[in-house]
């Protein structure tokens, strides 16, 4: 069935991916220098975030996890407020309380974030339930990793969403790693999408390093969730090309597997394609990179200037 999805300018997708990469690299550098706390970067996985988030409508809600910078930036988060949050500053989206691991941004519809692996999966049906009980528009997108699919909550979540007809798009970023454990050591099956069928939930596994493929699949998936009011699972195959949490020497990573995925870097893939098909010049590409670098510079300046929270706010916002 052909759908009419809004046209999205691929160069905008490229710019978003460049921004995410530059943001993560700034954190890596800052963290190596001891100026920024370590984080779980999304380097290598930019296409998954950008492809899915650009398929969403403004009223859609997002749940995410510890590896969320891509989701947040693709959704339009300000890199300065993100960086400030990572650095524990009052100007961060959560006033520095979250740090990098549980950033939520209500104004962008990024509703709940848990760094407890599986936490996002547990909360997602409820966010969709409030949509359906209150007659509110929008579907719910829940990002999670292949590791999260090993937690029983994954299954409980799918079962309930299927049973209660909840409009949740489950997006598994299968990046081959669960911290220091390869998915082969942790999953008795190859694909997370196989499990969806056992709940009667439609699913698709796609190449997560091709942002246009991700976008197309996500547009189909969101449309299906929107019209059916029922869950869908998209498994986005990609690779965590940096370590689990900065710094990480990746000594435990198979060099060949890593090299193969690095050769399919999502930014390079799209950049090469746009230059090859003539829709972008090399200098146009460079201009995007410059623009992004300027934004990251400004972000750093903002974050650096933002003060630490005052210790007398230690118990603010515990209770409503």
């Amino acid at each position, binding site marked *: 069935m052909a759908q009419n999805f809004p046209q999205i300018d691929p160069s905008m997708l490229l710019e978003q991916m460049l921004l995410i990469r530059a943001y993560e690299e700034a954190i890596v550098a800052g963290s190596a220098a001891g100026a920024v706390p370590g984080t779980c970067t999304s380097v290598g996985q930019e296409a998954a975030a950008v492809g899915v988030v650009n398929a969403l409508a403004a009223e859609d809600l997002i749940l995410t996890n510890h590896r969320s910078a891509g989701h947040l930036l693709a959704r339009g988060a300000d890199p300065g407020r993100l960086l400030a949050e990572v650095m524990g500053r009052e100007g961060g*989206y*959560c006033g520095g309380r979250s740090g990098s691991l549980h950033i939520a941004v209500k104004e962008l519809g990024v509703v709940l974030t848990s760094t407890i692996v599986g936490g996002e999966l547990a*909360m997602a049906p*409820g966010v969709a339930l409030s949509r359906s*009980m209150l007659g509110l528009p929008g579907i719910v997108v829940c990002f999670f990793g292949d590791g999260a699919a090993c937690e029983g909550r994954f299954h409980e979540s799918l079962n309930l969403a299927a049973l209660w007809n909840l409009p949740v798009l489950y997006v598994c970023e299968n990046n081959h790693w669960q911290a220091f454990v390869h998915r082969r050591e942790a999953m008795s099956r190859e694909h997370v999408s196989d499990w969806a069928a056992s709940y009667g939930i439609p699913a698709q596994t796609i190449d997560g390093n091709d942002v246009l493929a991700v976008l197309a699949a996500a547009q189909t998936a969101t449309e299906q969730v929107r019209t059916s009011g029922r869950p869908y699972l998209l498994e986005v195959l990609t690779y965590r090309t940096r370590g689990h949490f900065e710094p990480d020497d990746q000594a435990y990573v198979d060099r060949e597997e890593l090299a193969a995925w690095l050769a399919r870097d999502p930014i390079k893939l799209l950049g090469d394609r746009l230059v090859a098909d003539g829709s972008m010049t090399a200098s146009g590409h460079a201009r995007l990179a410059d623009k992004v670098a300027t934004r990251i510079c400004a972000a750093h300046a903002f974050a650096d200037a933002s003060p630490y929270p005052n210790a007398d706010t230690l118990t*603010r916002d515990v209770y409503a």
Partner: protein
Amino acid sequence: MPILTLYDAVGAALTEEMRRDRTVMAFGEGIATKRHELVSEFGALRVRNTPLAEGIIAGTAVGAAATGLRPVIDLLFAPFLCYAMDELVNSAGKLRYMSGGQWSFPLVTLAMTGAGWGVGAQHNHNVEAWFVHSPGLKVVMPSTPADAKGLLKAAIRDDNPVLFFLDIGLLHEPGEVPDTEATIPLGTAAVRREGHDVTLVSYGKTVHNCLRAADELAAAGVSAEVVDLRSLKPLDMPTVLASVAKTGRLVVVHEANRLCGVGAEIAAVVAEEAFASLKAPIARLGGPDAPVAASYPLEQAFVPQAAAIAAAAERLCRRQYA
């Protein structure tokens, strides 16, 4: 006033609050079956049976609470909370703070607890202190049907996650329950009996054991004041401290294991803040460091009974302490 059991008082509170506020809904393993009158009045969407999976029940409530609903979930027996700890503790209790106050989580979790059914430690384990210890949560445990109704109404209206424990031993005890809109604010203890020689502090079924002990003590010439905490967090320490300031003696009593229980907290606060008025050591009666056996006599032996409470109080009153 109508006479209701504690179980039915909970039903009355649910009914009134669901009438008042269409965002209140209830779900759990069998709640639509066991409280079918709620389904009849509010429909099968607002009152739902769930799969047998406490974690996703709680997680769903947390997600729904953050985004506009006021869920009440029934997790049946307190030990089953073990399957929902992440959702209650790490999500509901922390995500408001960690998000810099962006969300609130108005949800109520019901759980039955304590002796009275003779089915052993995997159904009978008083874990309320876990949630007092954990930040961002409120904890309630009523000792009468009227309190159950008034406190549950307040809990449903509260914008924070509330753990609401129902003492199994009291569930089918009848009592007068107002049919009015009366709510009881969380964090207010009740002085159940006034006295001037010794303060007995408790909650749940052992409040009644304290009242029986107070009768025995009165016969022995000792005047005991009985404080029913009702809320365990917020904890109404001003009421406890005022009573101890008057009596100078304190016995804390609960069914939960003694080690790191709510009684420890109360004793510690009193030892810090009312030291000067203490005329005697603080006595603490609680369950031993053991699971609860199914066998009836052992189940009963686990719970501090009136005679032991009276004996402890009398010891404090009779002996001279340097």
